[in-house]
């Protein structure tokens, strides 16, 4: 069903964002914050299959291309925009909401784009809008992290743009379609690297756990949903079936979860765990079968909701207590029971408990790997599932809300809007677990997979139960310490220090020396040369012509004497002239 009246969802969010200050002025900011995402969410069903084709400078741009793959992502992105806006409803600064919505617009625009140039435009909008969600935290660390985030994404954007240019030179066409593995060239791999940077594939992942924990409370909720999942979408669209992605994805799942086990800051644990979860999707894209692409889409859908739920739960704790480190928290279940329940629902959903969304989405990817006989990848994914339950399913809620020690904090429960937002996300996590067909019917290909088989159940019972036993045995070794762990951002964070040293010491010293030499020798030489040239011009050339330059100087000097620069003299002269003219006119 399509209607003739519709608006590009990205346009809707951009206009919504631009009108937000106006809505604030008329005291309807909260209404506006709910209304725009709600209308966008309802409207996506009525989008035509193709729209917004523009020819510009000889390029065919397509702003709207809708198929089933696009639809799953649009559905969850607009739903998430609604949940995120609800969660941040109490934030008075319009700027944060504007940044969040422009970021959402970038993500929706990328998802709908039918050509690489449009992808690139919205891709950059995403990076530049989201950095404000970090800067709005207004702490020194956030500002620094924001700059690093921006630099890394600018680099990724340039790699992507380079790939797009090369591809245009090779193929002469910028349509964004599936690239075949056998005919992929350097251009395609550059585009893929640009996409992979946003999907946080190691070794270019460190921007994510560096930046997300420094974002604002509601900013992090938006960020955890859009950047990486948009990257999963573009990878699924363009690079399905690239085996590199399957291997990198499987490594990602373990890399992220390993850091989630050792980190102390709750939001950093969740950020690392995004790397792990997106690994499942990247891996599925790499496997590339119909079932795997279904799995990637389903997992992206489910993951956005439960990861946002976890970020919201921990965000409420941060909002109410000002703390997010496990070593400084504990015993909060007494004061924030609803936030605790929602966080635990997010935790069990991400671990794939039966009757939650994780159970019906993650397993699809694992089954796709199994059907493809990729046993190493299969076991890596299952090991990551063990780590997921260990780090986010048990460790996180345990040390924040229960814990061996009570933190002594007595915060209030989170504001109502945060609880409503968490409630919606939690409802979706469980609803999808009970009624998987709601999600399965949206997927790009027909689904022939049934999650609730006795074998899948027993496998899950065992994995989760005995991981729990492992936690129980080792709980005292998992006690969080207030430290940070090195990651690959070391290269550019330390590298930047060295670069600054080189710039400050040798380069600056050389520069100073050169400028001294220039001042003492070069400048005098130049001045002497200028004087010589001036003399030659004055005496030689003017003499050789007719002395007109000297005449002009002399004439100018005489004229200058008349011009006193005093206004009354000029007015007097003008009046006198007027009289003379009048006399002449009257008398003659």
């Amino acid at each position, binding site marked *: 069903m399509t209607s003739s009246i519709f608006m590009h969802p990205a346009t809707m969010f951009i206009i919504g964002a631009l009108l937000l200050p106006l809505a604030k002025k008329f005291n309807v900011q909260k209404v506006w914050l709910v209304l725009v995402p709600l209308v966008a969410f309802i409207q996506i069903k009525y989008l035509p299959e193709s729209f917004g084709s523009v020819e510009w400078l000889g390029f065919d741009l397509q702003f709207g291309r809708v198929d089933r793959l696009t639809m799953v992502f649009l559905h969850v992105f607009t739903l998430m925009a609604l949940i995120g806006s609800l969660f941040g409803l109490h934030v008075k600064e319009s700027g944060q909401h504007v940044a969040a919505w422009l970021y959402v617009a970038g993500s929706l625009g990328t998802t709908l784009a039918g050509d690489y140039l449009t992808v690139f435009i919205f891709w950059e909008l995403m990076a530049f809008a989201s950095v404000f969600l970090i800067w709005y935290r207004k702490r020194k660390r956030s500002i620094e992290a924001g700059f690093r985030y921006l630099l890394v994404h600018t680099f990724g954007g340039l790699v992507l743009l380079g790939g797009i240019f090369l591809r245009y030179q090779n193929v002469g066409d910028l349509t964004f379609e599936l690239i075949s593995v056998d005919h992929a060239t350097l251009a395609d791999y550059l585009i893929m690297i640009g996409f992979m940077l946003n999907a946080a594939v190691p070794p270019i992942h460190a921007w994510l756990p560096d930046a997300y924990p420094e974002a604002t409370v509601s900013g992090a909720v938006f960020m955890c949903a859009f950047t990486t999942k948009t990257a999963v979408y573009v990878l699924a669209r363009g690079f399905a079936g690239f085996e590199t992605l399957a291997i990198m994805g499987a490594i990602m799942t373990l890399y992220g979860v390993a850091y989630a086990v050792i980190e102390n800051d709750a939001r950093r644990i969740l950020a690392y765990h995004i790397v792990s979860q997106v690994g499942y999707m990247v891996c599925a894209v790499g496997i590339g079968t119909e079932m795997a692409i279904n799995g990637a889409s389903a997992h992206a859908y489910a993951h956005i909701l439960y990861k946002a739920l976890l970020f919201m739960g921990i965000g409420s704790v941060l909002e109410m207590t000002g703390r997010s480190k496990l070593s400084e928290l504990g015993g909060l279940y007494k004061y924030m029971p609803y936030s605790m329940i929602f966080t635990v629902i997010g935790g069990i959903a991400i671990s794939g408990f039966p009757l939650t969304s994780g159970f019906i989405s993650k397993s699809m990817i694992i089954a796709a790997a199994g059907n493809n006989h990729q046993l190493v990848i299969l076991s890596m994914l*299952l090991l990551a599932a*063990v780590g997921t339950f260990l780090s986010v399913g048990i460790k996180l809620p345990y040390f924040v809300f229960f814990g061996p020690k009570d933190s002594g904090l007595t915060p209030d429960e989170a504001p109502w809007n945060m609880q409503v937002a968490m409630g919606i996300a939690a409802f979706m996590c469980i609803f999808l677990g009970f009624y998987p067909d709601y999600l399965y019917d949206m997927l790009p290909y027909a689904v022939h997979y049934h999650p609730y088989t*006795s074998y899948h159940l*027993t496998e899950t019972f065992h994995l989760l139960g*005995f991981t729990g*036993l*492992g936690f129980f045995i080792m709980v005292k*070794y998992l006690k969080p310490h*207030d430290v940070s762990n090195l990651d690959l951002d070391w290269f550019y964070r330390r590298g930047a220090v060295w670069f600054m040293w080189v710039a400050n010491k040798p380069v600056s010293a050389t520069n100073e020396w050169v400028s001294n030499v220039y001042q003492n020798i070069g400048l005098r030489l130049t001045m002497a040369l200028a004087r010589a040239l001036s003399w030659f011009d004055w005496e030689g050339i003017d003499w050789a012509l007719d002395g007109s330059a000297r005449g002009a100087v002399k004439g100018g000097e005489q004229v200058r004497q008349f011009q006193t620069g005093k206004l009354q003299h000029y007015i007097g002269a003008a009046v006198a002239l007027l009289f003379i003219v009048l006399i002449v006119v009257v008398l003659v």
Partner: protein
Amino acid sequence: MIVNFLTYLRERPTFLKWLFIAYLAFAVVFDFFADRHHAHFWGDHLVGFWAVFGLVGCLAMIVFCKGLSHVWLERDKDHYDK
């Protein structure tokens, strides 16, 4: 109400422990009756394979990651500010 209930449970760790052990026992028993027609590889045919995988994987992961953190990765929290 929820808070009181949870506090009540937390004051009875032995009960929780037995509840957990009962669950593990149930999981193992359930495994004998599971239908294994869609097995992906040899491990899927062994009863309790995923129990061992989960436990060993979990312990190995804790030892490996925590160990790596202690001997190599761990730094002060303002490491880069110095």
